[in-house]
C-alpha cells in the first residue's frame, strides 16, 4: 500500500467532508463569567444551526460529564440542531461506548437519524473523557475489554434486523428486534483512534470508518495508521472506507488574533487537566510548535488553517477533517465568528487547494 494509492482512495471514492466538532465547554459572558450549563447548551444549538447556514458538512458533539463540559446527552442537543436544519450532518465526537449500552446508543442515534432525515452519524471511542466510567460504575482498567465487546455488538446492531449476540459485558440478545429501524441501511459509524494500532485493525475488522484524533505532535506520524487501515480492510475482504482527522483549533480574522484569543484559554484548560493528571502544562514554545506546520493545532487565519488542513489531508490519505473548535473560557460570540469563518472561508479554500 503506497501513499499514492491512499490518495487515490480519497480522491476517487469518497467526497471531501469538512466538519466541526465541539465538546461544548461552558461559554463565558463578556465580563469573563461562566454561563450556566443550560445557556451553554442553548448556545451549542445556535452554533450547530449557524454551521449549517455557512456550509459546514458535519456538526459533532463530544460526550463529557464535567462541570466545565456539561455535554452528557449530546444526542438530545443534536436532535434540536437537526430540527432546525436541513442539510448539515449531525453526530457524536465521540460517544464513549465503553461506559454505555450499545443497544441504547444504537436506539438514540437511529432516532436522531429519523429526526434528521438520515443525517446522523456516530463516532465511537474513549475520547479524553474518563468521567463516565465511575459515573456509570465501570472500571477504567476494563476499558479495552468493554470497548472490544461493545463494538462487536454495535456492528451487529447497525446491520439492521433481529440481533443475536453473546458477549461478556451485557446480557445476550436472542433474535431481538431493536427499534427504530433505519430507513435506508446503516448510518455512518466511525471509530475514533488516538494512537492504538489495535483500534485501527479493530475498526477495519468491523467495517467502521477511521477517525484519527490528532491532538498533539506531528500529524504526519499518523500516515502509517491510515495505510494500516486500508491494508487491514483488504485483509478482511472489505472495500475501502473513509479516513477522517479530528484536531483542535481556532479560526479568527488574522493569525495574531486567533493566537491571542485561543492561547490563554488553551493554557488554562490544559494546565487544569495537567494538574489532575500529572503532566506538564504547555509553554509558549510548545504552543508555537503545535500551531506551526508540524504541530496538531489549527489556530490562525482562514488561509493558514485551510493550508494546514489541505496539507495534512493529503499526507494522511484522508478525505475528512473535523475541526474541534472552542475552548473553555471563550465566549459564544467568538465561537460564532470562528464557525462563520470556517464555513465561508476555510472550507471553500480547502476545496480549492485540493482540486
Amino acid at each position, binding site marked *: 500500500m503506497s501513499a499514492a494509492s491512499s490518495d487515490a482512495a480519497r480522491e476517487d471514492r469518497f467526497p471531501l467532508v469538512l466538519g466541526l466538532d465541539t465538546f461544548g465547554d461552558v461559554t463565558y459572558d463578556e465580563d469573563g463569567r461562566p454561563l450556566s450549563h443550560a445557556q451553554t447548551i442553548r448556545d451549542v444549538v445556535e452554533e450547530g444551526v449557524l454551521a449549517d447556514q455557512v456550509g459546514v458538512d458535519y456538526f459533532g458533539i463530544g460526550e463529557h460529564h464535567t462541570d466545565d463540559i456539561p455535554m452528557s446527552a449530546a444526542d438530545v442537543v443534536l436532535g434540536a440542531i437537526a430540527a432546525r436544519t436541513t442539510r448539515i450532518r449531525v453526530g457524536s465526537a465521540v460517544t464513549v461506548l465503553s461506559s454505555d449500552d450499545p443497544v441504547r446508543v444504537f436506539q438514540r442515534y437511529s432516532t436522531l437519524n429519523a429526526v434528521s432525515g438520515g443525517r446522523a452519524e456516530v463516532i465511537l471511542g474513549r475520547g479524553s473523557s474518563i468521567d463516565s466510567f465511575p459515573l456509570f460504575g465501570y472500571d*477504567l482498567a476494563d476499558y479495552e475489554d468493554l470497548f472490544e465487546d461493545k463494538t462487536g455488538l454495535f456492528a451487529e446492531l447497525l446491520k439492521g434486523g433481529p440481533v443475536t449476540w453473546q458477549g461478556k459485558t451485557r446480557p445476550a440478545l436472542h433474535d431481538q428486534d431493536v427499534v427504530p429501524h433505519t430507513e435506508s441501511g446503516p448510518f455512518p459509524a466511525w471509530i475514533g483512534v488516538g494512537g492504538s*494500532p*489495535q483500534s485501527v485493525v479493530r475498526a477495519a475488522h468491523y467495517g467502521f470508518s477511521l477517525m484519527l484524533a490528532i491532538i498533539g*505532535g506531528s500529524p504526519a*506520524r499518523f500516515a502509517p*495508521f491510515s495505510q*494500516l487501515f486500508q491494508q487491514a480492510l483488504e485483509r478482511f475482504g472489505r472495500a475501502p472506507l473513509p479516513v477522517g482527522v479530528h484536531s483542535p483549533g481556532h479560526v479568527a480574522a488574522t493569525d495574531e488574533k486567533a493566537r491571542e484569543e485561543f492561547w490563554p484559554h488553551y493554557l488554562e484548560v490544559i494546565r487544569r487537566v495537567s494538574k489532575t493528571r*500529572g*503532566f*506538564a502544562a504547555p509553554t509558549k514554545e510548545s504552543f508555537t510548535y503545535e500551531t506551526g506546520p508540524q504541530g496538531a493545532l489549527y489556530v490562525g487565519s482562514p488561509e493558514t488553517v485551510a493550508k494546514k488542513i489541505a496539507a495534512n489531508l493529503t499526507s494522511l490519505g484522508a478525505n475528512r477533517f473535523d475541526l474541534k473548535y472552542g475552548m473553555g473560557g471563550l465566549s459564544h460570540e467568538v465561537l460564532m465568528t470562528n464557525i462563520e469563518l470556517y464555513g465561508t472561508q476555510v472550507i471553500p479554500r480547502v476545496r480549492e487547494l485540493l482540486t
Partner: protein
Amino acid sequence: MTRLAVLGAGHVGPVIARVAIDAGFPVSIAASGDPEEITLITQFLAPGAEPRWAAEAVEDADVVVLAIPLHKFATFDPALVAGKVVVDTMNYWPPIDGVQEMFEDPLYGSSEIVAHRLSRSTIVKTFNHIGYHELDDERRPAGSPERRALGVAGDDPAAVTTVADVIERIGYDAVPLEGLGAGRLLEPGGPVFGVSLSRPEFEHAVARSPLREKA
C-alpha cells in the same frame, strides 16, 4: 549489537520498535498471542521488526522492553522474562487508567513494585516519561542543543549502562539516576513527566525536586 524484544503492540511498543530499528538495533516484537495477529501492525508501524511469539522473542534478546498496559501486568508471567534485563516503560496513572491495588503503595515507585514481582529479572525504568507521540519526533543527534534527556533508573549499573546506550543511539541524552527507587522522579506528577528538557535542565529539575528526598 544489543538485541531488543519489545513486548506489546499497542500505543507504545511499535513506536519504540521503530526508533530502535532506525538506530540499527535488531528488534523483535510480540503481543500476547500469535505473531500473525500483529504482522500488519508491524509492517506499517515498525517495518523491519520481527513479529514473534513472546517467549521466542525474549529468549534471543539482551534487553526486553515491557510496553504493555499496566493493568495487564497483574496477569503477566514473571517466568517469561526471568534472567533478563527488562525496561519498564509503564506508568501507574490512576486519573487516566484507574486505580490498581497492587500499585497503591506510597512507599514504592511503580517500577519497584514491578521489580518485586519480576524478582528474577533486572529492572530498568525509562521511556515512561516521554509521550509515545513524541518519541519519534524529538530524536536528535548527539551534541544537538535541542536533544532531549531521558532518565534511566535501575539498581544494576551494568544494566543501566546497556539501556543508556540504547537511549543514546536512538537519539536522546541518557541521564542515569541513583537506583530504581529514584525512578519515582520519572513518574506522573514528577518534575520531568511529559516535559521536554535538555540534559542540564533535566538534571536541575531532578536535583531540586522534593521527591528526591523520598526517593
